[in-house]
């Protein structure tokens, strides 16, 4: 039991645990202290000085977010001195910020704008920045506009501490400080994995995704083009937040209606492709295991890593290129779907794939990079034309004047519109693993997984790294070689956790058969394209929405999806077959982490 310390904040007295910050104590007391550089996912920085408060007996004002309470104190959060200091700090930040609010993607969701409103800023008391000083840096996925940067270092703490990618750095000192990519190289040239977590945590519009909205409107407005959208489970569990729903409200069916009104010719479910991924990836896992356990083939690598997260794929290409053989050769569901749409579906409905535009609604910024990879055109065309994030879709729906709340419930189009609950839970960390276990176990033994209600609880949750074991008993005759084998699996989310796992693997301290890694904290539901803000509570709410939707479904196993079986019967043949190899599998590029090499 830790010691309780009495604190008096304004006229409220309360007791807090030793080490609680003043900011946390204020929250307990029901008081709001404004913050800017503080974020619930990140380390304390105490840089912006917006949260300053008066502590009795101390001469200077203290940053509430960075002051741990160690003895009884009296705090004033709303004295004239505090208000004056906050306003001066805010005015100084504003004078450095190129605040072109009309043209800013964060207009209305900008934390700095909100603070300026809250503090009644009616003029610039210091010279304001009227012309941009820096060039805007664009990659296929991310746009970086230093003119709007206020040096709060949330992105730095995200990139270096939370994700351990280290594509960003703080250069110079004091007034000259610049938040930039390493060595100020273009963001497309550094080790950036496009996870977009920095975008979710940037208080202003200094970091944003590369929006394809104008091009997409152009395609929708073109009567020659057949525009198809596939929606992933995570955006459906989060886009409601942009329209006034509580976090954790799934709006799948209303969204279908909205997308049709927006002008999409077909609305399909990425869960279908997730089921397809499970068929391919599950078969690949069994094939690898047989080669290793039975044939003793040393050229085949286990553990096998999942390859659904394009952020993780680029991370391993940069940081662990020697492990690329461990990465499943399966494309992600988004890319599998694109390849199937432009071949099987195009032929089935008689549409020229050249005139087909495939859009993927994703929670993810890295999906933009993924669909632009040169190797992702096995259908003979660019498999997926646009990766659209949840936020960008919300903008389009608003622009079209559609009220999401008033939409009727509509279903997906068929075929290719039926997804199982196993595909659905891909959206949460551990979901791919759970979906794979549900199918692989049943394929091998002929019995459903030995977990109550098909819920593979050991792989669920929000701990950074989780592992589980599953012993195969009495398998079907063709899988006799797996009898008595204990499969060891692990799940990691956030690349920092993935790194811990990788370092242990490298040191030979751990051994697994199958590992799921998602680049973003919480999995896809915490993706870089999801509505802002994000916090552990919001991510947990989205996860609840996804798991409860899974429970409402009858079809909860990928291999039982009739539309998947139809696809194999009519077109692909069998998992890992010739056509599957051509359309659904890919290869990777070792990139390394020292991009200065060769200069």
């Amino acid at each position: 039991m830790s010691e309780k310390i009495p604190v008096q904040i304004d006229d409220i007295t309360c007791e807090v645990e030793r080490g609680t910050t003043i900011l946390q104590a204020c929250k307990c007391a029901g008081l709001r202290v404004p913050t800017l550089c503080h974020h619930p996912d990140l380390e304390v920085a105490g840089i912006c000085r917006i949260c300053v408060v008066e502590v009795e007996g101390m001469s200077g004002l203290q940053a509430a977010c960075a002051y741990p309470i160690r003895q009884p104190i009296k705090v004033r959060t709303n004295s004239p001195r505090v208000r004056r200091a906050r306003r001066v700090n805010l005015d100084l930040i504003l004078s450095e910020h190129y605040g072109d609010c009309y043209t800013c993607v964060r207009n209305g969701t900008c934390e700095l704008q909100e603070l300026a409103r809250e503090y009644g800023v009616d003029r610039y008391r210091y010279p304001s920045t009227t012309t941009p000083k820096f060039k805007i840096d664009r990659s296929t996925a991310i746009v970086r506009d230093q003119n709007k940067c206020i040096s709060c270092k949330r992105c730095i703490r995200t990139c270096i501490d939370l994700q351990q990618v280290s594509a960003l750095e703080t250069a110079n000192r004091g007034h000259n400080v610049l938040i930039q990519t390493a060595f100020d190289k273009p963001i497309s040239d550094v080790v950036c994995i496009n996870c977009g977590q920095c975008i979710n945590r940037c208080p202003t519009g200094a970091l944003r995704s590369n929006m394809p909205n104008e091009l997409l409107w152009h395609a929708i407005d073109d009567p020659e083009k057949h525009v198809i959208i596939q929606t992933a489970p995570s955006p459906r569990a989060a886009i409601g937040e942009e329209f006034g729903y509580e976090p954790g409200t799934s709006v799948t069916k209303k969204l279908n209606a909205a997308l049709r009104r927006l002008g999409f010719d077909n609305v399909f479910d990425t869960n279908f492709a997730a089921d397809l991924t499970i068929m391919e990836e599950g078969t690949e896992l069994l094939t690898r295991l047989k080669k290793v356990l039975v044939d003793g083939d040393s050229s085949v690598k286990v553990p096998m890593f999942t390859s659904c997260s394009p952020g993780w794929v680029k991370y391993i290409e940069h940081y662990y290129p020697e492990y690329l053989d461990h990465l499943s050769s399966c494309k992600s569901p988004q890319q599998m779907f694109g390849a199937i749409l432009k071949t099987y579906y195009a032929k089935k409905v008689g549409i020229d794939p050249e005139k087909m535009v495939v859009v993927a609604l994703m929670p993810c910024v890295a999906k933009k990079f993924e669909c632009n990879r040169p190797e992702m055109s096995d259908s003979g065309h660019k498999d997926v034309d646009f990766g659209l994030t949840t936020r960008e879709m919300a903008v389009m729906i608003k622009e079209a004047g559609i009220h999401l709340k008033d939409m009727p419930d509509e279903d997906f189009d068929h075929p290719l519109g039926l997804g199982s609950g196993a595909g659905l839970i891909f959206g949460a960390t551990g979901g791919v693993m759970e979906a794979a276990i549900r199918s692989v176990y049943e394929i091998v033994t002929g019995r459903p997984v030995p977990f109550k209600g098909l819920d593979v609880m050991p792989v669920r949750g929000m701990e950074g790294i989780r592992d589980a074991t599953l012993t195969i008993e009495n398998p079907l005759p063709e899988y006799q070689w797996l009898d008595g084998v204990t499969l060891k699996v692990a799940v990691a989310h956030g690349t920092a956790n993935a790194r811990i796992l990788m370092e242990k693997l490298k040191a030979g301290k751990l051994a697994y058969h199958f590992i799921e890694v998602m680049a973003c904290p919480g999995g896809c539901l915490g993706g870089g394209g999801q509505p802002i803000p994000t916090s552990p509570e919001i991510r947990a709410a989205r996860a609840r929405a996804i798991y409860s939707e899974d429970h409402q479904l009858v079809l909860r196993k990928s291999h039982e999806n009739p539309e998947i079986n139809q696809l194999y019967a009519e077109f692909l043949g069998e998992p890992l077959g010739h056509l599957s190899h051509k359309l659904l599998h890919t290869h990777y590029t070792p990139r390394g982490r020292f991009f200065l090499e060769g200069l």
Partner: protein
Amino acid sequence: MATGTRAVTNELQEILLKYGKDRTQLLPILVEINNYFGHIDSNSIIEVSRYTGVPIGEIHGVITFYSFLGQKKRGKFVIRLCRTISCDIAGKEQIVRVLEKELGIRFGETTEDGMFSLEYTNCIGMCNNPPAMLINDKAYGGLTPERVVEILDSFKLSEYQDMFGYGGVK
């Protein structure tokens, strides 16, 4: 220059081994590389990153934070003239002109022979005897144009003697 490059790498290796792989050793490593080579080039940054595991971006951040560390090659003698208020009032500008004229370079530059670099620094605690400057680790106060010429000459002379083996004062 192939052998020269190789010697540099060995020297770098020695510095790295001396301090070890711990992240906290980054600054001592960088200081020593900087002092030994006169600057920290991109090759050194990569080697330090490979050895300590600290990402190159962070290393670059540290180098740009400390003005005594640099990526640009500096001269054998780095002259840092104080630009803070006491020295400024006491006639810093005159000293600037003499230094630039004597060495034939502007502030921020290095002489062609790689001997001298000119830079500004903030207060070095010599406010009792302004204007003041540092040449590498040594401080010189109460500067007048004549004294600056004398100091520079003594450095040039000792270098000349070193080069031709006169022994000479150090």
